[in-house]
């Protein structure tokens, strides 16, 4: 591999440039016209404009991206996260054009891409999933299933996500009406009234396992706790979790088993819900690098993006499971250009004054520079700050220290820093009592 085309933007484009540079691979950043003056464009060896600001015409424009790789002589494409990262067709087209897609195989993606298939694969691999049904044919079927699973149960839209078409049902009396409502909502939202039913996990932790595979060997790099979410958006992640050792080990091994079952290639993440008793349920797999990958890098010392490159170049896994050593604790906060006091409303603008934290145990991943105009077309993540320390308590204090010295200012620009400061001070958070509805319940946001 001589030259990689980066089919992404923002901090992850920069992250990929850094990995490639350290491996001696040349970089080409494919960018929209809105990102012409972005830091990745500046720091890459080359840059090529692939379309106008709307991502449908640029970062999702497969012909322009492939053409850009071809005309710049790139022999590989790194998709980052989001955009085309989990698009099996794109991965396949790369392969057809003799371009290495840095990520899993199209077959991996298809085996794990949609939730229903992934659940089936999990069951084959002996990994527990949330007990539930397929699409419900009738209220009667729902009643039988709910009885078997045990209340409370939750109804979900087959086509959907993001909370729409969802209904929590506590008793059999509520069920019929709830099914009807969920179907109506699902039809309105997704044009498809199909719903299914699942066991409702109360106050679960969102735990995800990082894996690395070379197609034969798969290792896990332990878990991340991503329970601090708001409307299914992760805001703060940490590793390791505060779960007991046995639970952590059981989940991690289950995840590696599942990934091994599909002959997984590259970096991937398996997401689980964990209830108060330590029961865990596989939900889905993300077949790509994740925003929160740095916390795993901080505690294991393994460079996950470099690992993606090396695996894509055909290298066999160079670390065995026993060699993965966890040291200390790491926390990442996602700094978004959003106003947490106004419902996390996006707050774009120009960054005029910028000061990032430094010193021991602090890592910053950000594409900001003083004078940068945040474009309104893309997501609002502008910086990730990661703090490492020997213990969780010290990592929290270090993160507080780091945020206290961070300055990201510009006219009208708001960030989620004050929100994170509140989370870090929260007594429940400090003792590790986090779960996916923490922000709603403990932060009242």
């Amino acid at each position, binding site marked *: 591999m001589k030259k990689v085309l980066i089919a992404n933007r923002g901090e992850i484009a920069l992250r990929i440039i850094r990995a490639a540079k350290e491996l001696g691979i040349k970089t080409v950043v494919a960018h929209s016209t809105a990102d012409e003056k972005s830091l990745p464009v500046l720091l890459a060896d080359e840059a090529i404009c*692939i379309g106008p600001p709307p991502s449908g015409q640029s970062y999702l424009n497969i012909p322009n991206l492939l*053409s850009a790789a071809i*005309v710049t002589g790139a022999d590989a494409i790194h998709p980052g996260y989001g955009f085309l990262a989990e698009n099996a067709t794109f991965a396949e087209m790369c392969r057809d054009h003799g371009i290495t897609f840095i990520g899993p195989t199209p077959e991996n993606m298809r085996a794990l891409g949609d939730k229903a298939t992934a659940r089936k694969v999990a069951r084959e691999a002996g990994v527990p999933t949330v007990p539930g049904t397929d699409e419900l044919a009738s209220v009667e079927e729902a009643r039988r299933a709910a009885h078997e699973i045990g209340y409370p149960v939750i109804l979900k839209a087959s086509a959907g996500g993001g909370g729409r078409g969802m209904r929590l049902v506590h008793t059999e009396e509520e069920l019929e009406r709830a099914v009807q409502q969920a179907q109506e909502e699902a039809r309105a939202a997704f044009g498809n009234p199909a719903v299914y039913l699942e066991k409702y996990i109360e106050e679960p932790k969102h735990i995800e396992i990082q894996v690395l595979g070379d197609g034969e060997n798969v290792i896990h790099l332990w878990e991340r706790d991503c329970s601090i979410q708001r409307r299914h958006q992760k805001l703060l992640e940490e590793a390791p979790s505060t779960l007991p050792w046995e639970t952590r080990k059981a989940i991690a091994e289950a995840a590696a088993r599942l990934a091994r079952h599909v002959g997984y290639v590259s970096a991937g993440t398996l997401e689980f819900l964990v209830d108060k008793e330590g029961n865990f349920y596989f939900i889905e797999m993300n077949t790509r690098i994740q925003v929160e990958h740095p916390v795993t890098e901080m505690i294991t010392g393994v460079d996950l993006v470099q690992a993606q490159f090396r695996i894509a170049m055909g290298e066999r896994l160079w670390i065995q499971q026993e060699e993965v050593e966890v040291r200390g604790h790491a926390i990442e906060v996602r700094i978004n250009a959003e106003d947490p006091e106004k419902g996390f409303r996006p707050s774009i603008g120009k960054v005029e004054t910028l000061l990032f934290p430094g010193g021991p145990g602090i890592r910053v991943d950000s594409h900001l*520079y003083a004078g940068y105009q945040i474009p309104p077309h893309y997501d609002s993540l502008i910086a990730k700050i990661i703090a490492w320390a020997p213990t969780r308590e010290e990592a929290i204090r270090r993160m507080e220290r780091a945020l206290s010295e961070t300055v990201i200012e510009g006219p009208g620009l708001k960030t989620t820093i004050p929100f994170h400061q509140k989370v870090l001070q929260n007594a429940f958070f400090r003792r590790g009592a986090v779960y996916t509805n923490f922000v709603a319940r403990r932060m009242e946001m």
Partner: protein
Amino acid sequence: MTPKELKQILQALVEHGVSELTLETPDYKLTVRRGGEVQVVAVPQGLPTPASPPAPLPSPGPTGSAPVPPSPPAEAPQPEATQAEDSCAGCVEIRAPIVGTFYRAPAPDAPPYVEEGDRVEKGQVLCIIEAMKLMNEIESEVSGIVKKILVKNGEPVEYGQPLFLIQPL
């Protein structure tokens, strides 16, 4: 008014994006006009220059360091014929709507679609951009004279890159 006061006033104009100012007081009358395309960067706080500059462009190659197209306004999603500002007053710029390889002729041994100085009609094919083995014909958006062909045959082009300058007739 002292030179220092004048300086402060000018400073204030710059800071507040003022393009024109007239001020009459019993003591003086001041008129200031600042340039049309004025881009003032009080502090070099734009794009920083890294310690080691990006490697020089392997020519031919479309990159940020290649002749940069004047950035289209962020709101205009489609590259279009625009007023060319530099070499040809009144000319219309034909830009690449896709990424690919620029060819002046339909086949290696065929004559070019157009030469500099040719008269073209709106809708006439000017060149081909090959992208993923598909030949995309690029048509002129105006009738006029081809004043300049900006890209060499066989060179890669990026989205929005100017290809031709055409003087409308």
